[in-house]
């Protein structure tokens, strides 16, 4: 009897599981996101969209971002992804989603009407979720994501603290920056802060100068193993940090400082310069609305090559390729990234809009950040990236230089050793 009951129960469960119906098109879109600070604005815009089109967009917030990513992966496995969502993982994971048929190709929609949608958006924002022909991931070339905003990392300067040290204009070259830092030290002001306890931010700063010193071809040649990290140009990059340390430019404990704490230091006027991303506008405004500061790219150390900053899509949405409401979802994203809605998003959330036309009405400080987008680049759009273990050795080596444990040459040799080891294992950069 017990066996019969068990068998019947199992049969019922299987029957229930098989009772699911294929989704049908509807006038309701589901959007999942992780952006707590933008939720209210999204809800407001969704309400407007309903009034304009009659289509309801259900905005669902799942934060923090780590947990959101887990939910998206679980939903992908169970094939219950919403119509619109974001993928926060690295590009190889985005490629996996695309190859699994979970992300719609938006190229046709972007190119329609003479490419008006595509042309209205920052190229760097689009590049984040785009794949070129012959990409290493084996993804069909196309545009797969819509940037909701863009971001870049630059230097900030506190106007009040600079004037206290008799500095009237921000430095234009690295030498000027060092002189300004020493002038600040003389009047008891800490010159520079950044969250270099977080390796990515340190990596970003170092790669800005690597582009400036040797140009992108040589950087990528290093990643391919054709140029060694002991090359004089790489030593120059490492030497920047020796100089910053020796000239007293850096705040104490910079290699253990998380970016949140570095942001507090700059917002509370404990340091005159900072290196941070454009999201800081919102952060600084919350901590100290009266902070008077400006934005500048890191001052170049060489005139050999242009200095590149990191810049890309801040947040992007993708459309579920299996959604019965795919076209409606694309139409909503087109509406969301139109000038009017982008202005609302930029003004209410203090993020850089992804629509270039919206720049005319954003705050002056955001406009300063926006100017940097033209000289930006990002690992996500590079043809290849360094092996993660080499990058880690590189960034940790710089931390060692800053705390005086190693010389630039020692670090260069250490990094090259890791690189050689990875190459010997067949782990080439991708």
């Amino acid at each position: 009897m017990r066996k019969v009951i068990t068998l019947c129960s199992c049969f019922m469960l299987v029957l229930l599981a098989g009772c699911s119906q294929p989704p049908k098109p509807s006038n309701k879109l589901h959007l999942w996101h992780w952006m707590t600070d933008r939720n209210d604005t999204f809800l407001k815009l969704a309400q407007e969209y309903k009034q304009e089109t009659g289509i309801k967009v259900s905005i669902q917030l799942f934060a923090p971002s780590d947990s959101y990513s887990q939910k998206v992966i679980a939903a992908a496995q169970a094939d219950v992804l919403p119509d619109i969502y974001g993928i926060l993982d690295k590009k190889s994971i985005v490629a996996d989603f695309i190859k699994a048929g979970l992300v719609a190709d938006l190229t046709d929609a972007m190119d329609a009407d003479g490419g008006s949608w595509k042309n209205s958006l920052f190229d760097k924002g689009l590049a984040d979720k785009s794949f070129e022909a012959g990409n290493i991931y084996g993804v069909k070339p196309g545009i797969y994501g819509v940037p909701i905003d863009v971001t870049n990392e630059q230097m900030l300067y506190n106007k009040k603290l600079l004037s206290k040290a008799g500095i009237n204009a921000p430095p234009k070259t690295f030498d000027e920056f060092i002189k300004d830092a020493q002038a600040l030290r003389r009047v008891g002001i800490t010159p520079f802060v950044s969250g270099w306890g977080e390796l990515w931010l340190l990596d970003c700063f170092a790669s800005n100068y690597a582009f400036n010193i040797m140009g992108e071809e040589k950087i990528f040649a290093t990643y391919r193993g054709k140029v060694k990290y002991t090359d004089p140009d790489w030593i120059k990059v490492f030497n920047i940090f020796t100089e910053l340390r020796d000239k007293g430019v850096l705040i104490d404990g910079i290699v253990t400082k998380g970016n949140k704490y570095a942001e507090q230091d700059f917002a509370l006027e404990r340091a005159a310069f900072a290196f941070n991303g454009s999201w800081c506008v919102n952060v600084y405004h919350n901590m100290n609305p009266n902070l008077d500061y400006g934005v500048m790219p890191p001052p170049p150390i060489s005139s050999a090559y242009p200095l590149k900053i990191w810049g890309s899509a801040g947040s992007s949405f993708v459309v579920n390729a299996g959604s019965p409401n795919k076209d409606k979802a694309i139409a909503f994203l087109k509406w969301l990234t139109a000038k009017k809605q982008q202005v609302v998003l930029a003004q209410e959330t203090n993020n850089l809009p992804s629509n270039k036309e919206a720049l005319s009405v954003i705050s002056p400080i955001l406009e300063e950040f926006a100017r940097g987008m033209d000289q930006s680049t990002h690992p996500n759009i590079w043809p290849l990236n360094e092996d993660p273990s080499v990058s880690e050795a590189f960034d940790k080596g710089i931390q060692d230089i800053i705390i005086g444990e190693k010389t630039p040459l020692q670090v260069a040799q250490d990094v090259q050793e890791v690189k050689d080891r990875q190459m010997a294992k067949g782990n080439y950069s991708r």
Partner: protein
Amino acid sequence: MTNETVFIDKALIPHHLNFGNFAVAWTKGNFAVYFLNSVIYTVCVVTGIVFISSLAAFAFSRLKFPGKNIIFYMFVGAMMIPLPGSFVALFVLVTKLHLVNTRFGYILCMINVGLSMSILLLKTFFDKMPPELEDAARIDGCGKLGIWWNMAMPFARPAIAVIVIFNSLNVWNEYILAMLLLEDTKLMPLQRGLVVFQGANSTDYPVLMAGLTMAAIPIILICLAMQKYIVKGLSSGEVVG
């Protein structure tokens, strides 16, 4: 305090007290709905855990059936699997059963999370129960369920108190599984309200602290009320183990 002064005013007692933060946290964090949800989840999950784990522990301790030890060690082994490690499998299962975005689905999963530890704890208590008590109950006409209800459960009261407190804490503070399984904000537990104040780059600290204070009060009261049982229950378990 305000978000600007929270970084500047480092006095133990802030110079400008702003009790309005509590009202903001309650309304902006939608606490009225989330509070009720958390109460429902806590009561249902803890009741479910106590009921199922006590029956299971009694069976493992006092009954004889094939594969008893293997099944018991499987339960104990399940304690070693961290919750995030089972996310995908759990989500797929709950989706197939059409229980995603339902209170029932979340309650079932949370009961599952708390069962292993509770069974282990209760089994050690039931193992300690003198067989004479069981015999006496049987002579008085008790069946297996009667012995469980009239003898074993009163005997394991300190362990049950510990299970109630530990699982109440666990359910009250849980958010990750709720976020995974629930989509409708009307079904979310209290922790969802607190997330609203924490952005990826900036946090509204004064309102967050006010919200945390309100969220902590009920669980602190439960812990204080049952404090003596925690010590008694844990120490009794240790002696047996």
